[in-house]
């Protein structure tokens, strides 16, 4: 964990906070906030540690090597919470699904024309039994497609284009910036809008810490939460601000950044919205019982 505890200017328990951040569009607000010095305004110094997958940061969070994970995948962390490896505390929301930010693509000459044609086909997802198949299954069900007849194949995002081009899979379920990239390179066609109803607006990731950290450092957590909410507003308000930060931490080139579909950046912490992902997970069997969101969502006492 980063540094000096004790009383700061505003009586913060901890002035330096270490954030593990993923190189995804989801976490853009953190970097927008940094750029606009929103954290400094709250008396916080933020130290960013890049990490490639949110699950990789989980042990570090549990051990206290990092204080917050930015862009933490809710499916993973809600499961960790249920299994007891982590007492989850959500400080701020990161991203929610918007139409076309995550789509199912096929090659231009593919016989697959509609969602129905996916039955009996191989579809590539980054991690099986996670957010992708969860949301896609919900969409397919809503469109009268039997999701159990789809064979999900695990393929990391960077390899999806090659796997699709070589014909190793019939379709790929892919997020930005790979989505735009594959469309550009292969002329790939969208068959399912992965952000469509009924999952539009479902929250997918957030800024999380442990309940332990939040309880020991309530003022710091509150300050971080305030800064993050402002940052989310800034990101949601002007996509240009997001486009500016993407080339830096996410290595997305400016011309790509200007065309990709952005997620929604929720500007409040909302148990009702979070309930949607919990419900989806419970229905799909990814959670055994519904967690008490009121204890999970950090409520500033200030």
């Amino acid at each position, binding site marked *: 964990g980063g540094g000096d505890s004790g009383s700061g200017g505003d009586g913060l328990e901890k002035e330096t906070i270490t954030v593990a951040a993923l*190189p995804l569009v989801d976490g853009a607000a953190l970097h927008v906030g940094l750029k606009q010095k929103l954290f400094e305004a709250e008396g916080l110094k933020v130290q960013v540690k890049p990490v490639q997958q949110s699950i990789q940061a989980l042990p570090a969070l549990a051990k206290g090597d990092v204080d917050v994970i930015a862009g933490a995948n809710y499916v993973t962390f809600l499961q960790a919470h249920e299994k007891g490896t982590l007492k989850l505390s959500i400080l701020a929301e990161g991203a929610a699904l918007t139409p076309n930010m995550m789509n199912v693509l096929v090659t231009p000459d593919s016989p697959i024309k509609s969602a129905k044609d996916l039955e009996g086909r191989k579809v590539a997802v980054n991690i099986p039994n996670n957010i992708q198949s969860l949301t896609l299954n919900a969409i397919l069900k809503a469109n009268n497609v039997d999701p159990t007849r789809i064979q999900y194949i695990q393929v990391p995002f960077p390899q999806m*284009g090659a796997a699709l081009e070589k014909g190793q899979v019939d379709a790929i379920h892919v997020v930005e910036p790979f989505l735009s990239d594959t469309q550009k390179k292969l002329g790939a066609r969208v068959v399912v809008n992965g952000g469509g109803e009924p999952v539009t607006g479902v929250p997918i990731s957030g800024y999380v810490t442990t309940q332990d950290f939040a309880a020991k450092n309530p003022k710091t957590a509150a300050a971080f939460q305030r800064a993050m909410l402002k940052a989310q507003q800034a990101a949601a308000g002007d996509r240009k601000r997001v486009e500016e930060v993407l080339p830096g931490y996410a290595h*997305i080139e400016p011309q790509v950044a200007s065309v990709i579909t952005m997620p929604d950046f929720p500007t409040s912490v909302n148990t009702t919205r979070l309930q949607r992902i919990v419900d989806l997970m419970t229905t799909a069997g990814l959670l055994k019982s519904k967690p008490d969101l009121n204890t999970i969502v950090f409520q500033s006492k200030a």
Partner: protein
Amino acid sequence: MTTQTVSARSGRAARPLTRTGRWARGAVGVAALFAASELLGRAGIVDRSYLPPASSVVTRAVELAGDTLFLQYLADTLTAWAAGLGLAIAVAVPLGLLLGSVPAVNAATRAIVEFLRPIPSVALIPLAGLLLGSGLEMKVALIVYAATWPILFNTMYGLAEVDPAGKDTLRVFGFGRLEILLRVSLPSAAPFIATGVRLAAAVALILAVGTEIISGFGDGLGIFIAQAYSVPDGARDVLAGTVWAGALGLVIDAALGGTQRRMFRWHHVRQGGTT
């Protein structure tokens, strides 16, 4: 009796290769790999950005040599490598001598050893991270865990192969077990132990880079590769990093091989025969 028409073979009497001859042939081998991967990249099986041809990868790798951040990453990886390999040698050789010379200890620990060996250390990264943090200590611990086995095994098998005549000789002069172990068994097993070290050196490098890739945290060549992984068009950087890993391995092995030849001249001269 059959008439023997087999022409006289060369073998031992063949003239040994010169240094230049060896280098030239080695270069041919590497060039063949380069050509093959260039062709594969240009074959058009997939988009070029998914698998860039070798020329583009190597160009990028050369560019990286001028990138100070990248060089810093390299230095971090090599630090972990050196520390890990050094510790592995320090652990494995004495342990190998013990297990290889005292069958009772070997039998008593075999169950544990054989149970632990196949456990994939890198799969334990999240757990190792919990105990050791995600920095150098964890990398080194995992490297030691993986690099110990080749040295340990080659030490044990090397000992089993020692000609008993040599050991008997020191025995009759009244030398004790330990001294025989150190003065006869160890030197005669040393060339094979050195092969184990060469195996371990590459394993350690793979572990250093692999741990970085999988832990996704910190600094190092693996982090460079992992970062390149998560963006479109990253394949070129991934493969350029891979070329660096391979090149490091090549240099390290050449250095170890040279040391091995110098240290065990008696072994090689004898094997190589006479002019």
